[in-house]
């Protein structure tokens, strides 16, 4: 995958003007994580009403790929119910931006926000459900994302 393919218009635009960037003061759940190797760091806040993600915002620091993927991911998640959000996959995010063949190190940039989203979800479910097996599965899933 050459850079000409990676750094297309949409990535550059999202990196300069991310969507859903910011904080939600009265969030129902928030989660922070970072990429130990490069220092990218992302927070996601969500409002959850009726089992639905009624609002979602992210903030943090990261490269163009991280920013673009966070924008796309939050756009995908918004309005979906929890089960649908749980099922968002790598390829949903990468596909949207044509990044399926990204090299290993950069995959971590691209998927950091998905990891944070999944972690946010298990932290929410852990508090609001008592199907702990389900939560563990989700935790494992987030940990093994890349």
């Amino acid at each position: 995958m050459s850079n000409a393919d990676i750094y297309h218009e949409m990535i550059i635009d999202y990196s300069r003007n991310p969507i859903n960037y910011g904080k939600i003061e009265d969030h129902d759940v928030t989660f922070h994580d970072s990429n130990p190797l490069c220092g990218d760091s992302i927070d996601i806040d969500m409002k959850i009403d009726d089992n639905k993600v009624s609002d979602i915002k992210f903030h943090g620091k990261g490269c163009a790929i991280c920013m673009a993927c966070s924008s796309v991911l939050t756009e995908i998640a918004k309005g979906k119910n929890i089960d649908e959000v749980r099922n968002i996959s790598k390829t949903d995010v990468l596909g949207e931006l044509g990044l399926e063949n990204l090299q290993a190190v950069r995959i971590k940039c691209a998927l950091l926000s998905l990891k944070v989203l999944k972690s946010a979800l298990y932290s929410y479910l852990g508090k609001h459900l008592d199907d702990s097996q389900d939560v563990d599965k989700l935790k494992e899933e987030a940990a093994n994302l890349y």
Partner: protein
Amino acid sequence: MQSAQASFENIRKDFPILERTVRENKTLVYLDNASTTQKPNQVIDAINDYYRNHNANIHRAVYALAEEATELYEKSRDKVANFINVKNRVEVIFVRGTTEAINLVAYAWGRDNLKEDDIIVTTEYEHHSNIVPWQLLTREKGAKLEYIGMNDNGELNLDDLDKYLATGKVKLVTFSLVSNVLGTISDAETIISKCKAAGVLTLVDGAQAVPHMKVDVEKLGCDFFAFSGHKMLGPTGIGILWVRKSILETMNPFHGGGDMIREVHKYETTWNDLPYKFEAGTPNIADVVGLGAAIDYLSNIGMDVIRQHEIDLTSYALDKLSQVKGLRIYGTKDISKRGGVISFNFADVHPHDVAQIIDEEGIAIRSGHHCAQVLMERLNVAATSRASFYIYNTKEEIDALINSLNKVARIFKL
């Protein structure tokens, strides 16, 4: 049999050092494999290739070389996991060798889990690296170090284990799977099942086992497992600590530094995921790659084939050595309970003198305490001579050893 024999002859061609002569133009007969093994071209070439074509620091950079180096490094982790049947690769930690592996456990697990009057149990035939770290730890904590004794056949007295376990104070039982002096293969199954029943963790020192026989940590069922690359055709400076994930997750870090952190702030820091939390600093990348090549080499031959070759050699050597007048062999004669290590004493001649005299014939054996002084005290000897075998050794080399002992007898007028 024939074809196995033939393939073992081909093996020698892979080891350039075996073509060397030493001293006065004598062919090298290398019989100190329990100490360290020689390296095949495949391992030397892998290190070469790494430095000539892929060298870069790993994990952090996006450029091509770093990507290649990272991939080579992590592939070796998979090879290790596969070789000893580890299901979760994050449980495999690269260290310098068995010694560092055991010290890591003593510091990063031991200091948080041992308290006054607790007991750690080791055995009389351990290598110093499985004794001294526990002496240091138990002294620091006001805890006790106890020893499983040994019968005259070189087998552990498991009654001792029962006795210690019955106190309810044992936190860890640690033992070598194969003794580096006697060659005894420990009854790991019994030891570990007793410990499990008592809720006690186990550490297995696999330094003398992994190079010589199929080892399956899942099946073993221990909690910590350590071994060294340089004793299994790999380079010096690299070894493995395996820790069961449920325990590893509870452990604080050992070394602080690069790669083991998630976020560093002035006054607080969070840790990286496993296994990186325990791999601080630039690791020994080239030698990790070299170890991967060693594992490939051993896997290609097959560990069962290797074990059989060593059984053949060891039986032959035990037989020949028993016929030497005045020569005393330590440990069991039951080959199914013994690895390819034979310790002996020859009449009243000190092992150093034996080793030096036969060195002149090109024969390299070890003499001394073999980093097992507690065992020497138990055997009531100052030292032993030790011959230890590996895949490239032959019966002819054992004959050469026996022959050279005649010279010792002549000089010392035995």
